[in-house]
């Protein structure tokens, strides 16, 4: 079979794979939830429609985002900043690497569990042709992302350095970076979905899941830090590279992706590389060889997926069939937590508020004290980020929601359990603020210690309201579904914002922290009472 024919044919297994991956991990469908009617939230037909919608637009949306993220580190120089290009290239490669991994893990879950298309194996095709189509389906998972980000990087480097050779080196570095990213995504998917989802859930599986989640968290936190601190990071890295301290520069030159950044930067300077740049160019050759090996491993893994996939699961025997009992709310919350932690994306969302708070505190790391405004901003933004959980938890229900619907369950049991998880997800953010105030920085006002407690109340009220709105009320008018869904999230956001706003306004008028804190507490408590009554009577 000609490669062009195989490429054309691979579009169908790819679409099927993307669709199945999204359908398989219904918690990944949270953004596709917008525009659906809550009354049909659990219907198979609705889920399929949502998955198709996401499969169609997901790659395109992410590609635009990846291109923007890959290009952003070059903007300071494009606008006239005077420092070299190494730091911008490094940052751009780091961001595009992380985003390729993030997207790849989501898309490849169905690939690693059932192969791209079992139907292909039943057709009268040569095994080599099936393998080629599988390989090209795999290539399609990240083709736009890779081409878009690398083209963007090559464009900026060529323009900013006015050097075609630099552009070619950037092309090589971008290709190495993309191959590594796709390889890591494939490996992460294989480990997570095959070895954990496909086997008995034991302590070893739990530890591995935790380790993967932490690794995942580091990737996502890395992206957050890169975005939040790009303005500081580029000059900082550039000054380290330019400093006379050869040891730091030499170490950095060996670390991925600094070596690629320094290597590309060295070409822009002409053909007289410094010692650090020589190290970087040497490391670049090593990373190129690693990328070749990763590419071979990925190709052979993908080509053998139809055979491997069928044996992807192994069940371990157990002899005890007893089950543990809890109260209805706890049982429902545990069920939600288990479902949410069964895929990397939604599992990581559980830790997102803590990471968000951490990023805000890191951004103010240069301040000697923990100011009231920092606590207020950290808690409010952490709370707002927590409010993505209700939508994720409702989406995680998937078709299984029909199972719950056949049971004598009260709406408020479901609402309470999901609000409980959302509030619990916010608690680590509170703990981080308290730890910072206890161990690292004193609070500027002792009353600030009450702000996180008021925020917990506000988050509990907001999540209760949001879950109730998502579960209980069908939007009217198909054209405005999306707007109405956003309005539900905005309602939750408003509940979190209101006590913080009341604090700010009270303080502006009274300059009294005690009064402002009291007003914030009163507002959050009133919200909680009002929402509880609303849920009870609706």
């Amino acid at each position, binding site marked *: 079979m000609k490669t062009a024919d195989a490429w054309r044919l691979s579009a169908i297994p790819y679409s099927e794979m993307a669709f199945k991956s999204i359908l398989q991990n219904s918690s990944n469908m949270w953004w596709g939830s917008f525009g659906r009617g809550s009354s049909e939230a659990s219907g198979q037909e609705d889920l399929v429609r949502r998955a198709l919608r996401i499969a169609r637009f997901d790659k395109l949306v992410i590609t635009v985002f990846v291109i923007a993220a890959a290009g952003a580190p070059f903007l300071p120089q494009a606008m006239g900043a005077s420092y070299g290009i190494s730091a911008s290239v490094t940052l751009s490669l780091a961001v595009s690497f992380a985003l390729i991994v993030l997207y790849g893990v989501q898309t490849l879950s169905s690939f690693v569990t059932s192969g791209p298309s079992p139907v292909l194996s039943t057709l009268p095709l040569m095994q080599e042709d099936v393998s080629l189509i599988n390989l090209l389906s795999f290539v399609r998972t990240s083709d736009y992302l890779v081409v878009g980000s690398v083209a963007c990087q090559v464009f900026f480097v060529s323009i900013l350095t006015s050097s075609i050779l630099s552009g070619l080196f950037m092309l090589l570095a971008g290709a190495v970076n993309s191959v590594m990213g796709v390889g890591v995504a494939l490996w992460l998917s294989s480990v997570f979905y095959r070895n954990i*989802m*496909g086997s008995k859930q034991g302590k070893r599986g739990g530890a591995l899941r935790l380790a993967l989640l932490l690794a995942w968290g580091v990737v996502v936190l890395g992206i957050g830090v890169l975005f939040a601190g790009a303005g500081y990071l580029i000059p900082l890295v550039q000054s380290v590279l330019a400093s006379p301290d050869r040891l730091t520069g030499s170490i950095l030159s060996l670390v991925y992706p600094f070596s690629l950044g320094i290597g590309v930067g060295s070409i822009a300077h002409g053909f007289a590389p410094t010692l650090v740049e020589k190290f970087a160019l040497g490391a670049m050759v090593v990373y190129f060889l690693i990328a070749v090996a990763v590419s071979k491993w990925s190709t052979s893994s993908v080509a053998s997926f139809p055979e491997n996939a069928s044996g992807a699961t192994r*069940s371990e025997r157990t002899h005890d*069939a007893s*089950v543990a*009992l809890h109260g209805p709310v706890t*049982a429902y919350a545990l069920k939600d937590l288990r479902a949410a932690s069964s895929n990397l994306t939604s599992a990581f969302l559980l830790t997102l508020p803590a990471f968000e708070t951490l990023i805000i505190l890191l951004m103010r790391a240069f301040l000697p004290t923990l100011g009231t405004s920092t606590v207020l901003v950290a808690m409010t933004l952490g709370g707002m980020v927590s409010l993505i959980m209700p939508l994720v938890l409702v989406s995680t229900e998937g078709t299984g929601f029909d*199972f719950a619907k056949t*049971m004598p369950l009260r709406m408020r049991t479901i609402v309470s359990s999901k609000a409980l998880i959302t509030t619990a997800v916010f608690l680590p953010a509170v703990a981080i603020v308290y730890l910072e105030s206890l161990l690292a920085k004193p609070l500027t006002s002792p009353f600030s210690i009450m702000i996180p407690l008021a925020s917990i109340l506000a988050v509990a009220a907001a999540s209760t309201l949001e879950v109730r709105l998502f579960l209980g009320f069908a939007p009217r008018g198909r054209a405005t579904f999306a707007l109405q869904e956003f309005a539900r999230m905005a309602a939750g956001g408003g509940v979190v914002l209101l006590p913080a706003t009341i604090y700010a306004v009270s303080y502006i008028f009274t300059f009294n922290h005690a009064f402002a804190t009291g007003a914030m507490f009163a507002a959050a408590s009133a919200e909680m009472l009002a929402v509880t009554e609303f849920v009870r009577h609706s």
Partner: protein
Amino acid sequence: MTDALIETHGLTKTYGSFGALNGLDLGVMSGEIYGLLGPNGAGKTTTLRITAGLIEPTKGKVTVSGFDATKDPLHAKAQIGYVAEIPILYESLTPRELLGFEASVRGLAKDSMNRRVRQLAEAFEVTSAFDTPIATLSMGTKQKVAIIAALLHQPPVLLLDEPLNSLDARSSRILKELLSLHVQRGGAVLFSTHVMEIAQRLCSRIGIIFRGKIVAEGDLNQLRARAGEKDATLEEVFMKLTNEASEVENTVRTLRESFFDDEDR
């Protein structure tokens, strides 16, 4: 006052201009296995899903053990065990987690419930899969887990949508025995199938559903009398009552001609 455990009156369900159910009336008595027999799209699954409280009727009423399924869903659902045609389960959970979740929500007593879980798991041979995520189980094992979940709380009413589809011979036999025991103890079963032999052997009464309505009901002899076919099989009776006999003959004739034409080519 009737001793019907399931009753529907004028049950209607429309999707846009399509009428899935068009004023369906049926009653399932205590001690009875009622087979709902009909072609694909006749309204069997819709009837069961409305009775289970999964969807609301456009018009009409369903009562389960006297509780209105729409107005008093909590009490109605407490009376029901439901097995869907394609098992609906939380697939990321293990059977142990799923059954623990169900038992917790239903507030079952720990000791007696655990004894029942162990007995059912052994009977359907799923104990070894108890810690394996449901997503990775075979369709047959998923079906067995769904059946255990439906029987766990010993409900008086069982709603079973093609429950034997993916089961092996052993499990089918066990389920049939369990259903017999269930009705002997005064329970009721509403059972949907399109397999005539199963309906003929298992059900005390059969309702033939066609285009969202019961067109005939009774035991086999009553249905034969209704169709005017004295020694007919259930399949023949069914074809007669749903006016599908001549249509099927025409289709088979067309297919036969088409296949012969292909061979000629």
